């Protein structure tokens, strides 16, 4: 499928894209296919892009997703997270009602997928969350030519340019060398970001044990079980304070300003996130070492991807929709914001239990 309708609205058979996919309260609904994509409420049949908890929720009748996403849901919600499940491979085509769907790598986290929905001659790609930057822990993002491209806009402002993540890791290692008596505590989302940071540290030649907050042990070991080498990992719990000097530890972002941090010797608080590009955001959180490492496409990535898909129409979801819609329009593309509620930072769902809980 190519971009034959660029800029136009003359769809064959009068089938409009919004008849194929439309936003409803439960999420993005495909009526002719009888399913929802990443529904925020329990539905009969759900097609899920990736394992983050704002996209993958429990309680659906049937779930279609990649094996990794299904495994992650099982880890988080237990065996009965859905009535039935079906694992889908990248590139596999599946017929649902009047449409066919096909999964393509999204490069966001392990198992993340874009979902191409084709009905007659119209192809819509729901890209979920994605990034076009290299990531040693997941299959690289793939451009999928389509008529309508549904894009996230988490970092949809031209101030968000993420640079090379390897440089950020160099910054972290320079700080560890300069402050060998302190611990470096890196806030990172438990699913995806943490494992990527570890893999980047290993790529940079750091081979000392890396310490983990209890909340991210299980998912990290799952990554290892999928063949992603992360080197020696240890639990923070039970380690003496003095022994944590000079080490790097990873924790969910909310834990880095928690009582939990008191077990570290004079910790340097780092945070690996695309938000760290903006100083006020970093300062607000009391971060001493912001690391601009993002699992979402930055501004240049979003705009380059939109152009590469050849789509004539762009729907923009969660994030800074205004700027990206404006950009599309100034580049001759039809664009509109999709008002989908319930997606955003993983962080809220990533929060550890309330104050004082050991994790």
């Amino acid at each position, binding site marked *: 499928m190519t971009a034959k309708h660029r800029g136009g609205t003359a769809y064959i058979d009068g089938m409009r894209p919004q008849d194929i996919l439309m936003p409803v309260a439960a999420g993005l609904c495909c009526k002719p296919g009888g399913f929802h994509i990443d529904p925020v409420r329990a539905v009969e049949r759900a097609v899920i892009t990736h394992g983050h908890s704002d996209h993958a929720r429990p309680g659906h009748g049937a779930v279609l997703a990649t094996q990794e996403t299904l495994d992650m849901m099982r880890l988080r919600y237990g065996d009965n997270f859905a009535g039935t499940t079906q694992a889908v491979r990248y590139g596999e085509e599946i017929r649902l009602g009047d449409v066919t769907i096909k999964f393509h790598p999204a490069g966001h986290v392990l198992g993340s997928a874009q979902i191409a929905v084709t009905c007659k001659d119209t192809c819509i790609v729901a890209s979920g969350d994605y990034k076009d930057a290299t990531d040693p822990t997941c299959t690289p993002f793939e451009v999928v030519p389509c008529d309508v491209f549904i894009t996230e806009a988490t970092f949809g402002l031209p*101030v968000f340019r993420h640079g090379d993540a390897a440089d950020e890791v160099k910054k972290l290692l320079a700080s560890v060398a*300069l402050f060998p008596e302190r611990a470096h505590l890196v806030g990172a989302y438990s699913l995806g970001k943490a494992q990527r940071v570890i893999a980047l540290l290993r790529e940079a030649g750091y081979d000392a044990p890396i310490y983990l907050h209890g909340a991210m042990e299980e998912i990290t070991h799952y990554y290892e079980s999928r063949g992603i080498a992360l080197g020696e990992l240890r639990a923070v719990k039970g380690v003496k304070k003095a022994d944590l000097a000079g080490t790097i530890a990873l924790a969910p972002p909310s834990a880095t300003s928690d*009582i939990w941090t008191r077990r570290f010797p004079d910790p340097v608080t780092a945070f690996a996130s695309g938000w760290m590009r903006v100083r*006020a955001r970093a*300062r607000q959180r*009391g971060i001493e070492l912001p690391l601009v490492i993002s699992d979402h496409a930055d501004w240049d990535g979003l705009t380059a991807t939109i152009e590469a898909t050849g789509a004539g129409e762009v729907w923009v979801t969660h994030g800074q929709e205004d700027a990206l819609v*404006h950009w599309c329009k100034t580049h001759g593309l039809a664009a509109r914001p999709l008002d989908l509620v319930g997606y955003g930072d993983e962080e809220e769902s990533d929060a550890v239990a309330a104050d004082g809980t050991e994790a």
Partner: protein
Amino acid sequence: MNRFAELLDRLAYEPGRNNKLRLITAYFRHTPDPDRGYALAALTGALSFKHAKPGLIRDLIADRTDPVLFGLSYDYVGDLSETVALMWPKAPLPGHNNPPPPTLSEVVTTLRTLGKTELPKQLARWLDELDETGRWALLKLVTGAMRIGISARLAKTAAAALGDKDPHELELIWPGLAPPYLNLFAWLEGRGEKPVNRDPAPFRPVMLAHAIEDSDFANLDPGDFVAEWKWDGIRVQAVSGRDERGHLQARLYSRTGEDITKSFPDLVPSLHLPGAIDGELLVLREGRVQTFNVLQQRLNRKIVSPKLTKDFPIHLRAYDLLSDDENDLRELPFIERRARLEAFVRKLGESRIDLSPTVRFDSWDALTAARADPSSAGAGEDADAVEGVMLKRRDAHYLPGRPKGQWWKWKRDPHIIDAVLMYAQRGHGKRSSFYSDYTFGVWTSGDDGEQLVPVGKAYFGFTDEELLQIDRFVRRNTTEKFGPVRHVVHEPDQGLVLEVAFEGLQRSPRHKSGVAMRFPRISRLRWDKPPREADRLETLERMLKTMTTN
């Protein structure tokens, strides 16, 4: 430039003083001349070039970006330099011969000579060549808005650490140095002679006092000490000296060595003899010392108007002499310096400069009585501006820093009230997991009956153990959360009473209570006291009245 930018970037986030020092020293160690010298100049505020106006930066970005996208971005980021640094488009540079990003030296030396009309083009070229952080630092530098919480003193201390030198030693030679400080770094790295200070009126590192505790007196002999009033003003060093051409140069320094001469032009003519006086800056009206509140009107002024100097006449109360003409007196015992000072002040014959009188006493009891009632012990009408007594050993040399046992300060008891903890906020750095900033209030009658009104904020004064206790209390008694701020229960029978000590009170329209405290700190936790028994706003208003009318 990118390396310097990285340093600034890291410093901007680092709250700890020692860690800042380590970062700066590491930068000096790994950065070659002359870049590190210009960095030192930038950090100490010693660079001089015409700053670019924000309008120019706006024009540059307007030429290159969509105005709607710029508007949305600026709204989001909130800082012009940062917005421009982040969204500056990647330059469409031809082929392989991209110029390397500019060095800090290149930027500084170019800016010094660049004409106004050439600035926009040059700036754009640099912005093309630098990365995000580099652009941010460049824009902060050229707009003169480098607020990163580094004092000149801190930067110099970091440089001194490079050669394991005492920062005082560097401070002594500093006035004779100029960017990029090649001779300084040569000396610090053991490759060159110590630079000589040719400044005619250099700053000398000041001697500081220890706070005396009740238990100290038992080991001290009153006969060994001279006492003076401790004035509630600003510690300064007034230095005069002759330059190569024999002209007298006079300078006024703060206790950290910052040159504050420009703020007090009315004092300069009185410094007409070569020498270095250590003393207190005060405002005197009709011979009477005014309170610190009055003196405050003269501080941090960019423009000193004739009206200001007339309404707030400045005065120097001298208590030590560090040099008399060319002679360094710092190795002499205090009583000999005092005799030289008395002669020096007499010779000056200036009404704006007088001697800080000594306080007679023959026993610690007598001094206790004098401290409790300065007005009948010689301070007379100036008693309000006395915040305690100073004790100086008769044989003390003038030593930089805070040498043990030489000088003591014995402050008057601070003012104390009992207030109720209302809100708590997380601290920074080491304290980021603790609720360590406290807003406290006192009772007043409002529309809804008795209510607490906030009167101040304190974040020190407690021990580590007490911090743990308060932190626990805050977490268990939170009623609401707003971002980093927690509302803590504050009912008549539920809540925590804090004993707050402070140095003074001022009227303040900015505070809901109408009063502002000076130097408030937590002096005790009153777990024993129910909040209903905490103090009332009327108590503070009464205190304020006595402070301003006495």
